[in-house]
């Protein structure tokens, strides 16, 4: 069974220091479904959302966090529009940054 929580939880359990907070690396972990074991942050890179949105993801807040790190609107669109581009939460968020 795929858990309902996000990748962040798996980083905490695994003991991986948050790449977004500690290194300023944009990471989709806060809004992405767990199940991979939080692989990408363990390899010093941000999650790229390949498991799709978790339950009740706060994509708006996460995008604000990314923007604060200097991520541009087109980059946000691409981040949400990859392997799960049509999953509702990701689709809406990518569209919001296209306007």
């Amino acid at each position: 069974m795929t858990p309902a929580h996000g990748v962040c939880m798996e980083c905490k359990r695994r003991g991986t220091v948050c790449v977004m907070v500690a290194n300023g690396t944009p990471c989709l972990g806060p809004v992405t479904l767990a199940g991979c074991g939080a692989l990408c942050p363990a390899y010093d890179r941000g999650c790229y959302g390949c498991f799709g949105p978790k339950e009740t993801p706060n994509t708006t807040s996460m995008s604000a966090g990314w923007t604060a790190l200097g991520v541009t609107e087109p980059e946000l669109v691409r981040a949400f529009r990859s392997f799960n581009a049509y999953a509702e939460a990701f689709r809406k968020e990518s569209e919001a940054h296209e306007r």
Partner: protein
Amino acid sequence: MNAKTIKVDVLARVEGEGGLFVRVRDQRVTEVKLNIFEPPRFFEAFLRGRKFSEAPDITARICGICPVAYQMSACHAAEDAFGVHIEGSIRELRRLLYCGEWIESHALHIYMLHAPDFLGYEDVIQMAKDHPEAVQRGLRLKKIGNQIMTLVGGREIHPINVRVGGFYKAPSKQQLKGLTEDLKWARDAAVETCRWVSTFTFPEFQRDYEFVALRHPDEYPMNEGRLVSSKGLDIPIQEYEQHFAEEHHKHSNALHSALLERGSYFVGPLARYNLNYEKLTPLAQKAARTAGLTATCRNPFQGILVRAVETVYACEEALRVIAHYEEPDKPYVEVTPRVSIGHGCTEAPRGILYHRYRYDDRGLISNAKIVPPTSQNLKTMEEDLSEFVSARLHLPNDRLQWQCEQAIRNYDPCISCATHFLKLRVERE
């Protein structure tokens, strides 16, 4: 009426969806088609407007068996475009990761997909009843290839640790050393695989193939080299499209690639072996000789043997990289995008995989072209079938169909890649 049809609607033991159709009339093969009905996958279009850095993650998804090949060709294309050349430990780590993929992919094909053809089983599950030791050896061999990919790449399928310029994180010396014992077992198991496979019966068959592979002055080719052929081609990979072109055929959702000058050609283990035999390690060469091979092998049915030889090589090469590995100061080299075109061509387990990208000033991909190994072998596979069936019309249909399927599996086709294939039909009228 002296006619028949050999028809396989859905070919088993190949990666992807395809079928095979042969029509025979008056003791002549009149039609051969590899029907590739796996739907087109549009990856080249997905890549438009994406950043150069996304290509390794996106293109890896084209294949679950050879994702590293896609990642390597994508990275090398970007590095070619942006004027970066990767050397030292990072280059060695890439080679190690590729060894992992060659081991897992070759073990899968030798033991699970192709050996049942030679030993007369429907599949490896049936085969396991009578050959439990061999199947267990194959599975463990595959697992060790996977272990390399997991350690260096983050996971065995669709690794996450590869980036343009190198890796996100380099493994420690200690972590790599941990693979040594398993790899020594794998090397010996690969030598045993050569011996085991050499006891199979190989149909007598060969044609005047043009073998195409990379060639590198110092090593058996994986990531780098010039593109050479057994009929005199010798070009830098940047000139690929001046010599090779893809064409569409109605019966195939995979494009057929051809040499503009001479038509069909042959990529994969046999091509690499014939063009680079002298670069194999002494142990791999010895395993080849013991198995009855010389420096040239033109029988595609013996491809399974050459895969086993390459597996010996890949295990030894992985051991060499691990023994000499020093952690790099930084796991990647920074790249700065510019308006440019980049070419990447690397040796996937089943043959050369070509990528070409056009980038804009922000490093966004405006155009992408990907030519997987299977689309380069399709023409040769159809020609093989035509000649193979012509010489074996006396065989009963079930036997003929069996051998036709086997002839297709010689190429370890990855239809999912090529559509970016298999059913057999022989129609005797």
